[in-house]
């Protein structure tokens, strides 16, 4: 096995991981703090991708598209929290799942009505369409490298916000005891709306970065959402650190599994058996990992401290 290839695949895994992280961060905050299972988080990812694509088509500027998509999705997210989700906090998880599944259908149809069912074309911004020399012998697509950098920066920023700022303290305090936070003079509803809005913006960031490499399509958020749930279960629900760790682990395991599991299996069980078992097993790896984590550490790798 070529070690350069291994390094390159690790970069691929990292890149996939940070995409997952952007989704997982918002989802885990909302789940951890508001105790809300929001299946429609993938819809916000989709909305972000669509807004960015629409803006880039209109203005031609990727930067303008980023700003528009982030602010637009922030606003849509906050609106969604105020109109639809607020009434769900006190309901049980099944109600939340049903209601937010309804939102998925709503968003998918809304997007199809506005932009049509066909996939939209969106290109990598020309400044980032080249490759960069990561190491001697490894050229890596610049756009994907930027995703890694942006993802890690967002993780760092989130870490600072959550651990070092008043907002972060309130978010953590709210996760453990929302009543007490309110009784000490903090408008917890507004806090929730804001947190939800930022979670939405993070999903949009993931979506808008995904647009040029994946497909901008109605329903694009559902596929990744399942993997994001795996991430937060592995990482520990409600924990940003857990989301990052889980995302990177899932990204790596999935990517390296897809790349190397079949060749490795073929040395053990022979090439034809590996051809059959390899792809199936590779696509199951993250679920196997999740099952293992649930068995040995039901709280996840980095559980959030709760009251």
């Amino acid at each position, binding site marked *: 096995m*070529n070690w350069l*290839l291994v390094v*390159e*695949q690790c970069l*691929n*895994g990292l*890149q*996939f991981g940070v995409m997952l992280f952007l989704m997982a961060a918002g989802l885990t905050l909302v789940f951890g703090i508001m105790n809300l299972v929001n299946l429609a988080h993938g819809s916000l990812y989709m909305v972000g991708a669509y807004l960015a694509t629409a803006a880039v088509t209109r203005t031609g500027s990727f930067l303008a598209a980023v700003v528009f998509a982030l602010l637009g999705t922030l606003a849509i997210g906050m609106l969604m929290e105020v109109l639809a989700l607020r009434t769900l906090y006190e309901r049980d998880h099944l109600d939340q799942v049903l209601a937010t599944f309804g939102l998925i*259908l709503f968003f*998918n149809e809304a997007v*199809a009505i506005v932009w049509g*069912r*066909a*996939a*939209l*074309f*969106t*290109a*990598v911004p020309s400044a980032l*369409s080249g*490759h960069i020399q990561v190491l001697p012998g490894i*050229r890596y*697509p610049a*756009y*994907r490298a930027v995703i890694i950098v942006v993802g890690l920066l967002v993780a760092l920023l989130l870490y600072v916000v959550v651990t070092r700022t008043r907002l972060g303290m309130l978010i953590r305090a709210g996760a453990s005891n929302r009543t007490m936070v309110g009784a000490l003079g903090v408008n917890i509803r507004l806090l929730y709306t804001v947190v939800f809005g930022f979670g939405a913006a993070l999903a949009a960031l993931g979506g808008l970065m*995904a647009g*040029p*490499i*994946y*497909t*901008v*399509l*109605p*329903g*694009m958020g*559902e*596929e*990744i959402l399942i993997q994001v749930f795996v991430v937060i279960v592995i990482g520990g629900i409600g924990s940003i650190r857990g989301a990052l760790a889980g995302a990177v682990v899932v990204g790596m395991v999935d*990517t*390296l599994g*897809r*790349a190397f599991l*079949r060749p490795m299996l073929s040395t053990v069980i022979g090439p034809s058996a590996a*051809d059959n078992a*390899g*792809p*199936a097993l*590779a*696509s199951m790896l993250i679920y196997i990992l999740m099952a293992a984590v649930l068995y040995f550490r039901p709280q996840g790798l980095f559980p959030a401290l709760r009251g």
Partner: protein
Amino acid sequence: MSHSGLVGVYLSVHTPRYCTYDAAFAGKLAHPDFQAVRDGLVAQGRHVATLAPDAIVINSCHLIATFPTVVDGTPRHAGVLTAQEAPELIHGVAYDFPGDFELAAALVERGRAAGLPCTLANDVHYPLDYGTVMPVVCYLDRAQRIPVVPISVCLSADLDESFAWGRHIARATAALGRRAAFVASGSVSHKLVRGPERWPGAAEQELDHRLAQLIADGEYDKAWAWLRSVVRQRQLRHLADVLEFRAKPKEASVRVLRLMMILGVVVGLLAGQAARAAETVKIGFITSLSGPAGVIGKHMKDSVELALDHLGRKVGGLDTEVIYGDDQRKPDVGKQLADEMLKKHKVNFVSGIIWSNVMLAVAPTVTGAGTIMVGTNAGPHELSGKMCNELYFTTSWQNDQTPEAMGKYMQDQGINDVYAMAPNYAAGKDMINGFKRYFKGRIVDEVYTKLGQQDYQAEISQLRGKNPKAVFVFYPGDMGIQFLKQYAQAGLRDQIPLYSVYTVDETTLPAVGDAALGNFEARYWSPDLKNEASQRYVADFKKKFGYTPSYYGAQSYDGILLIDSAVRAVKGDLSDKKGMVAAMRKADFKSTRGKFTFNVNHTPIENFYLLRAVKGPGGETEMQIQKTIFENHKDAYYHECPMKW
């Protein structure tokens, strides 16, 4: 089909020899000549099942009353039947089906008000004859769930009275809001003979065929006049038969027969019109309408709608209802949809299906229920081979055929060192197998990815590591968009030529853009194919929907036209499955691919072309036919299909 009144009329013969369980269920017949009649009765049963009437009014010429006409309103008909006239053939038949007291009482009320002598029976001991019981339990409603109202023949009734009863039955059921079926247990050629070898000959059977044909053609007046003459004509013959057989007053026996026939036909004429007006073709169309593959479903659905437009919204001349179902690319969802369409909507055809794994779940469900399945995309090899079925057709292709064409082309080009990739599901395996059937060069590696995978960067890194000379892929729908973009972003587009099937097409090009330029595809149809049907389809499609159609659409359009040709061939008789299958086998419609034929496995024998993504005159990337790779190409599995025709 929500009309009340008589919604179906059946002329059900009841010769004891094929009204036995052995004949009906096991198909054991005393004489091979009975086969056609027995099959006809089985078909009647299926029709009753799709019609699902609220009640069956049955008039058997062996249920005899003397002075009044007896209507049996017993709420539950349960008993053990030994036929008075044939105890050695029909004995100890336990039956238990519901009755309909309300309907029977309403009939008697109407009869009395019209001055017809009649009476209502409500008595579990009222004896039923084999002509009433056997057709019901053997053929028409084997489950014995539909309420039955037996009505007797009356020896004292005259011809006019018989006619009158037909009208009253039709009106009483309509007034009650019942959807009822009328069964005349007997036939025009009915005669009493000793021994099966003396049963009605061809000329006599023709009388029944003639009547059926007249009614089917809507020639009610002709049927009426003809029947009167036949009744008069045949009186004498029957008289002779009766005199030979039993000593009964001739007048009475003749009336038995007359009433049976006339009642049945009068009612048939009344109901025939109602039933015809209510006749609708229902087509269940299953595809992926939501999620990432929703765009393919949209191409297909829009094409179905265009086909309906071209047919004046009438498939086979009948009112048409298409019920769309969204399988979400999931086999279990597809199967549930098919079940729902068959059971709840009682569709006459199921069509559509993008994904082979969904098709493998749906097709057997549909054909197993005796309904015709017209696939319009997926072509898993099982269904063209060992699992082929009389009721399963596809207007697309068998999966292997297209990659075979690509394999042939690449082989002919002398290309070597190919890296092959496909999603890991039924069609993915078929595609690579098909490719390898004609491509004999070296295959560097063969990689299967998860169905619906979004990111191929890991696979692309592996691919680059192997340094192949060419890449062959099958990535339909959203997977294709992602793969092509990422392949281009990895800088491989200019380094390693990409050959694909079902990857670069009109559903993916708008989103892929220039990333597909120069790609080779193999295909049986493309919007630039030059023939009249195709050009009309493409032009009208663009006009109506504002975008360029794809082969997914062309196949679906063809599917509806194929169904249309079948319904037309049987003159709208949707119960005539054999007739429709026979018609479909001719592929007698204006296909968008031009004239083609079906192989024995109901898979098209068709041409395959080499396509290339080029810049169109408008600046957008489009597919262009380069050359014909295969002419009249057969799939590789038809030898395994045991079907003969």
